[in-house]
């Protein structure tokens, strides 16, 4: 895997009741950084990811990789799919073989790789997702969280430069979310660029280097701290403000947090707060 910059320009796509879900949406997936695509249900997050992956051909606009425009031909799509992989939200849409290892081998086999190479890739993908112990298990016996990770492994075995994940943490309990995030961190170490869609603003603030908010059929892209603190934008996008920013801003106003970026999560917030009770502070001169 190596770094590629994936961009979308002026996408019009995904008609619903006579109007496109996206109308002039542009996005740059920064190579090697973590991008969270945020939006309410039905805002067009999935449509955007499907366009980026080549699964959906936009009726206007274009998708390109390192500046090279994605064509509509079979061959162009084939090349694109080796570089960009999309993992759907529902793992059952992606798991159709009897056993985990068989399922993960589906993509590499279709690439026409020799058996030895396929085995290597399957083992590598399973290990990266920490599901190697499930290799011989039938897919229908797995828990939901396990199925989600196996579905990701199926895409990872294609060794894409950019991995697009549609709601990878939806429906997962906290420990499964932590395991998924750890797996994504390992993927990044293997030079894959990871994009995830979510409506969990707290998760996006905690995880992402950059966020793209899908709002009013377009995309607004920027720093998490800036966009997720923009109440007007969040209202239009039907999203909440992350609690860490709400509380962080107030604590900073109270003079309790040091300068610099606001904390992204509870651990960061606690680390920023003073150690001693404030009653000490008011008595002991600093």
């Amino acid at each position, binding site marked *: 895997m190596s770094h590629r910059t994936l961009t979308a320009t002026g996408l019009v796509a995904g008609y619903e009741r006579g109007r496109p879900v996206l109308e002039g949406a542009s996005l740059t997936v920064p190579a090697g950084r973590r991008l969270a695509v945020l939006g309410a249900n039905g805002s067009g997050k999935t449509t955007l990811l499907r366009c980026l992956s080549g699964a959906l051909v936009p009726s206007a606009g274009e998708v390109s990789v390192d500046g090279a425009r994605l064509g509509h031909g079979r061959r162009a799509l084939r090349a694109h799919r080796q570089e960009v992989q999309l993992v759907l939200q529902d793992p059952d849409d992606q798991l*159709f073989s*009897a056993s985990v290892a068989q399922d993960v081998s589906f993509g590499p086999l279709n690439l026409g790789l020799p058996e030895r190479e396929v085995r290597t890739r399957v083992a590598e993908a399973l290990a990266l997702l920490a599901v190697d112990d499930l290799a011989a298990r*039938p897919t*229908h016996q797995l828990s939901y969280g396990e199925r989600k990770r196996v579905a990701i492994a199926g895409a990872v075995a294609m060794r894409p430069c950019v991995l697009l994940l549609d709601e990878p943490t939806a429906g997962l309990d906290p420990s499964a979310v932590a395991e998924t995030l750890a797996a994504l961190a390992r993927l990044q170490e293997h030079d894959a660029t990871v994009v995830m869609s979510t409506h969990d603003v707290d998760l996006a603030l905690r995880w992402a280097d950059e966020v793209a908010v899908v709002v009013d059929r377009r995309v607004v892209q920027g720093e998490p701290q800036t966009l997720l603190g923009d109440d007007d934008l969040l209202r239009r996008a039907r999203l909440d403000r992350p609690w860490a920013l709400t509380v962080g801003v107030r604590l900073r106003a109270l003079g309790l947090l040091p300068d610099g970026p606001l904390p992204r999560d509870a651990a960061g917030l606690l680390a920023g707060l003073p150690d001693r009770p404030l009653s000490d502070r008011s008595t002991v001169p600093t």
Partner: protein
Amino acid sequence: MHIAEGFLPAGHAAGWTIAAAPFVVHGARAVVKEVRENPESTLLLGAAGAFTFVLSAIKLPSVTGSSSHPTGTGPGAILFRPPVMALLGTVVLLFQALLLAHGGLTTLGANAFAFAVVGPWAGYGAYRLARAAGAGLLPAVFAAVALADLATYVTTSFQLALAFPDAESGLAGALLKFLGVFAVTQIPLAVGEGLLGVLLFRVLTVNARPELERLGI
């Protein structure tokens, strides 16, 4: 290819409706009995109907790249038996007429006779014969599904020939014409549908063994 609305003369449309009716009514009776004994089988039968509809929406891969769809009744005939398929197939044809504009209402009887009666019975017959002759599951499935597809289009050709006999060579000539257009071109597609059926059952024998056993396969 379903016979479009208005294509058959009124007399033929009525005749084929009468011909299909006993089979469909027999299927309806079987369904009513099944539902009376197990109320929850309404859901399983509805799911079977939906599957048949969706199966016919799968594109059959072909060398030429032209797209064509399976009839979808072969696997159903093996899994759910021809009487039930006579009803489910007719329901699916009604839905295809009203949701996709494939086929029609006055031609529903003729289409039902080809798709929901002759196809499933021919396929199921082939399946039983092959199994009785000692064939394995997958060869029997291939024979059944391919034959169900082919028999359907032979029947359609016959229906059209009967309606539009050739001015010079009569019924025989017309049959030759319609078979040439609707059935001979269908042979590769029937083989394709048979292959699809084999691949489907091969996956099912691994992934859904208990369900197959419950259905007596």
